[in-house]
Each structure stands twice: as structure tokens, then as C-alpha cells.
């Protein structure tokens, strides 16, 4: 008799995350419209919710075209990689105490590894498209994600030092008395910036940069392959929001309401902040992005880690 409980959790996580990723299309368009004094999609179904279904039907019925000059294998592989890595990362995300697919003792490292593997998708897509704009987008994505990865990991180490564990459940439980956003505020800001850069969303969408590079790395993609990049981006947004919630805002901990609801509310809040960022901020120049990453944010992350370590050593 095999134990069905883990399978059930896997199914539940996949169901919630994939549906949320699809629904985010609607959420994002409605929220952006709200902040731009418009309505957004409000015709299909109640509040325009049917727009999600309409969009996916459209994507599924579109011609799935592979350009003859493309490197076919890598071209097909690239969109799968981004969705697969982002979904794999959800294996270690606990939605509530015990409600987690795999409570690894190196959860954070696994998360970082998976979100770093996501860069392969972008680079492969840019390379295999055999299109100079796509290649430029891929190059930018590679440079951006490599440089922001570095201090993303370093900024998380402050939390790890305080909690004394890489296991995410332990980190959440260590926040019973105080959310880590208070002692680790600098780390939170750094991780937030790195997280936005990691999901390649505005203002860090230089890999895509529709006003400069057509659509960047996915210029040549159409139909559901493009849809996979889309879904992958939204899963990435959910992932980073969930990480922010778990590592800095006490995860599922909260009064009165049940644990998964608290987790959902906090995650949704950060998703909305992501969308607000997109609505409010302009895209930086590429050299500004790189020099910010290496000359400002990386030293700040190191200093933050140093001070946190000193406090922990001093036993305060």
C-alpha cells in the first residue's frame, strides 16, 4: 500500500499554483487598469474572469510555429525548462505546517538552485531562436541573472544565520516571536530587488524589453510555447512572493485565520506589489543595472551578512 498523502499534496500544490498562475493574467490586467484609471478586461464572464479561459483557448489554437532557421531541439526545450524549474521549486515551499511536498534540510539552497536553473531557459531560447534580438535578450538575461543571483543568495544568508537552519519550516517556526523583516530589513530589501530581477519582470525586464528588443528572448515564440514562458513568469512571481512571505513575514503564522489562508494573503500581497512595480517604475539602462548589482547591492549584502553574523556571534 503506497502512501497517498504526498501524492495528494503534489496534486494540490500543482492545482493551486497553475491555476493561480493562469488567474494572475486576469489579476495583473485588472490591477494595472485600476492604477491607470481604466477597467481592463471586464466583458467575458463575471468581472471579465472568463478572459483567462478565452486567452488560453486562443493560445492553444494558435499555430505552433518553429522557425526553419531555429535550433529545433533547444527551441522546444527552452519553454519547458522555465516552467519545470519554477514548479520544482515549489516542492520545498510549505503552505502550512506539514503541508509541503519535500521538507528538505537544504530547502533554501534548493530554491536558489532551481531559480538559477531558470536562466537556462532564457539563454537557450535566445540562442536557439537564431535571431539577433532574441540573442541580445538571452545575453542580457544571462548577465543580469548571474549578477543578481550572487547577492540574492548572500542576502538570504542573514535569515539562515538567525534561524540556524536551511530548512524553510525551521525558518518560519523561528519567526514565532518576531518576523525577520524587522532584524533583517536590509536583507529583505536586497532580496526583494534580487527577486524582481530573478523573475525578469519590470523594472528588470531587460531580457524582454519590448521597446528595445521586440520581445527579447521569446521574439520567435508563438502559441503555447509562448504561453509557457508566460506561465513560467507568473509562477516565478508566485515563487518569489511565497519566498518573501516565508523568509521575512512569518509564512503561515498569524492569528485567528487558518495557516494556509495567512500564507495566501501574504503571498497575494507581494504579488500585488510586483504588479504595482510594473505599473510604476521605468526600466533602467543595462549598464546601470549591472553597476547597481555589483557595486552597490553586492557590497550591501556582504555588509548585512557581516553585521548579522557579528550580532549572532556576540549572542545578542
Amino acid at each position, binding site marked *: 500500500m503506497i502512501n497517498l498523502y504526498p501524492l495528494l499534496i503534489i496534486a494540490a500544490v500543482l492545482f493551486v499554483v497553475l491555476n493561480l498562475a493562469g488567474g494572475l493574467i486576469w489579476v495583473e490586467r485588472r490591477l494595472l487598469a*485600476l*492604477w*491607470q*484609471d*481604466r*477597467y481592463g478586461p471586464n466583458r467575458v464572464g463575471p468581472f471579465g474572469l472568463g478572459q483567462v479561459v478565452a486567452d488560453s483557448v486562443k493560445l492553444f489554437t494558435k499555430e505552433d510555429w518553429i522557425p526553419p532557421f531555429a535550433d529545433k531541439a533547444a527551441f522546444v526545450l527552452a519553454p519547458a525548462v522555465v516552467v519545470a524549474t519554477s514548479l520544482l521549486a515549489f516542492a520545498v515551499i510549505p503552505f502550512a505546517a506539514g503541508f509541503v511536498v519535500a521538507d528538505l534540510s537544504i530547502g533554501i539552497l534548493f530554491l536558489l538552485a532551481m531559480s538559477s536553473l531558470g536562466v537556462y531557459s532564457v539563454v537557450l531560447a535566445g540562442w536557439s531562436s537564431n535571431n539577433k534580438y532574441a540573442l541580445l535578450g538571452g545575453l542580457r538575461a544571462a548577465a543580469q541573472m548571474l549578477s543578481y543571483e550572487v547577492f540574492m543568495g548572500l542576502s538570504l544568508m542573514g535569515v539562515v544565520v538567525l534561524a540556524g537552519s536551511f530548512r524553510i519550516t525551521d525558518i518560519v517556526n523561528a519567526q514565532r516571536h518576531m518576523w525577520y523583516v524587522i532584524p533583517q530589513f536590509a536583507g529583505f530589501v536586497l532580496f526583494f530587488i534580487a527577486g524582481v530581477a530573478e523573475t525578469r519582470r519590470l523594472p528588470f525586464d531587460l531580457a524582454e524589453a519590448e521597446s528595445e528588443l521586440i520581445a527579447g528572448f521569446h521574439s520567435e515564440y508563438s502559441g503555447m510555447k509562448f504561453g509557457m514562458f508566460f506561465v513560467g513568469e507568473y509562477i516565478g512571481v508566485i515563487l518569489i512572493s511565497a519566498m518573501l512571505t516565508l523568509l521575512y513575514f512569518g509564512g503561515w503564522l498569524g492569528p485567528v485565520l487558518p495557516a494556509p489562508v495567512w500564507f495566501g494573503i501574504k503571498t497575494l500581497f507581494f504579488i500585488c506589489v510586483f504588479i*504595482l*512595480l510594473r*505599473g*510604476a*517604475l521605468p526600466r533602467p539602462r543595462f549598464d546601470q543595472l549591472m553597476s547597481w548589482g555589483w557595486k552597490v547591492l553586492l557590497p550591501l549584502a556582504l555588509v548585512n551578512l557581516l553585521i548579522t553574523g557579528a550580532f549572532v556571534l556576540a549572542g545578542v
Partner: protein
Amino acid sequence: MWSLLRSMWGVFLHAFHRRVTIQYPEEKAILPPRYRGRIVLSRDPDGGERCVACNLCAVVCPTACISLQATEDEHGRRYPEFFRINFSRCIFCGYCEEACPTYAIQLTPDFEMGEYRRQNLVYEKDDLMIAGPGKYPDYNFWRVAGVAIGDKGKGVAEREAPPTDVHSLMP
């Protein structure tokens, strides 16, 4: 950094602003009276048709979408035998209205002219004619221009001045 946060807050505050979208089919936009929409042919205050079939509108039309044939009634007044506007070509530039010497052809604030068949966009004189005088309620071209009555020409009857020789106005 501060300006970034301030602009984010500013954008967030827009959540409480009024939305500017007009929900079109349910809610109509208010169009100004001089809006250049569907073209009509207007009538005198007396109810006669204003158009004298001078062809100026057809000549000035950049897309050549107006076609008409002039004819005369028993008093020698010119009027169009047919008057046809092809709205699938019309660009609503309003030149015809500017060219018209009798205020007959006018553009109205109506743009809801959608059709499923292209042929239905060709409007004949019956479709274009309206009952009233349009934007110029008191103007009557024949009162200004004068009319010949039977065998008496313009300005020949009692208490009438002869009409201005238009050629003397040339530069």
C-alpha cells in the same frame, strides 16, 4: 530610491481615482455639435431641398466617394437627380461641407454606421435627405440668390435691384 517609492505610492493612489473609460455600447460619449460623422443633405426652412447639384462637393472630395447627376425642374431650378455617397470610401474630412455654397451637405455627430454588407454603405439620396435644415435653421439659398419667375429674370420685377455681376468681383 526615494523617488521610486514616491512614484509607486502615487500610482497606488490612482486606485481611488475615477476611471476615465466610457463603457461604449451601454454608455455613449458626448460628441461636440461639429463632430464630423454621417453626412446628410438638408432642406430649406420651407421644406425644399437645398442642393443645387453644383458638383463642388463631388469635385473637392479627396476619395471621390460622392457622385450625383444634376437635372432641372419646370422652373429651371437645378437639383440632383440622384445623389450617392459611398461611405465605405468616405474619410469624413468635411471638405464637401466646406465647399457647399448652399449649406445643403452637412456632417452630423453620428458615427454608428456599421454594416455587415459593404453594399449597404452606399447611401442613396433617400438615405441622405433629412427633413429639417440641419445646422443652419434660417438660411434659405433661393431667398439670397433670387429666383426667376416665369418670363421675368432675376432683379427685373418691381422693387428689385439687378443681381450683382459676379464677374465684376473677380480680382
